[in-house]
């Protein structure tokens, strides 16, 4: 496996989320899963897992209808 030099962090604003799971479907590397926790408006929201697999394409962020996801690249 090639060396991975890009570390990506995904911030999910759980209070804006309405649990449509478009971000989970859009992720080609299965880095997002729907969690069991419930936010203040009663929706479940996704959690970011498998950080080492994330390529930082930003699809989850661009396709979020609530604009609740931000993708960052960590600079060393």
């Amino acid at each position: 496996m090639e060396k991975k030099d890009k570390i990506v962090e995904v911030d999910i604003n759980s209070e804006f989320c309405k649990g449509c799971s478009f971000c989970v479907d859009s992720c080609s590397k299965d880095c997002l899963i729907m969690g069991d926790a419930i936010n203040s408006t009663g929706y479940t929201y996704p959690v970011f897992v498998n950080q080492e697999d994330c390529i930082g394409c930003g699809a989850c962020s661009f396709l979020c209808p609530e604009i609740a996801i931000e993708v960052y690249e960590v600079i060393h």
Partner: protein
Amino acid sequence: MGEKKRKLISGRPKCLLPAGTPLCAGCQHGIGARIIGEVVDELGIVGNTIGIGGVGCHAMSMFLMNIDFVQALHGRAPAVGTGVKRGTDGKAIVFSIQGDGDLAAIGIGDLINATVRGEKLTTIFFNNCGYGTTGGQMAPTTLVGQVTTTTPSGRRPGAGGYPIHVAELMAGLSGVAYSARCAVNTLAQYKRAKKAVQTAFQKQIDGIGYGFVEILSACPPLLKMRPTQAREWFEKHMLAEYPLGEFKNLDELKIEYQVDA
């Protein structure tokens, strides 16, 4: 070890306020608002832009944007935009956000007459195949056979007519410089939609002509489906009826004098 530095790959555009949308779960109008926000940010026209909101769910995105907005009557957004554009001596960048009940039903005459007058505006048209705000009645863009509250056995052409293809209609009008239809269901389509909106704004900034972009999206409450099911329905039925793509893209409107003066 100080605080780690992070570079933003994708996040909330600057001209969108940090607030949640008032839209339903799975409604893709929020993505449309995001596209407009990103384009306005990238073109650097935040302080010079005035938006015209129609009546409907699509207009809720005006509460998200940190841009001046005028609320128009139902379907009259191009007419109000004409007034704003002429009142500011053509200096303001004016765009309208309209839905299919707003633009395609009551407002189609206003839209067509705005292009006939040769106005240089931009219209972003959200098509979700029905009236979402008022509870899911049939709109002119409703698909043949689609069940709504006013067509409980499906839209029948004998009584309900046929769906209207506004992007193709606009491509046939002389005053239109850009007409495209986009979707926002995948990342590739998102990028095409963003480019289309950017081009539609650029046609206005360059003073070429009317820019029109139709963005398709599914309405889960209207279809009485979960968001992911609604998106599958959208990919299966709506994309079959409404082909995506650019229908018109002119760098210059040709003016031919039919009568020699």
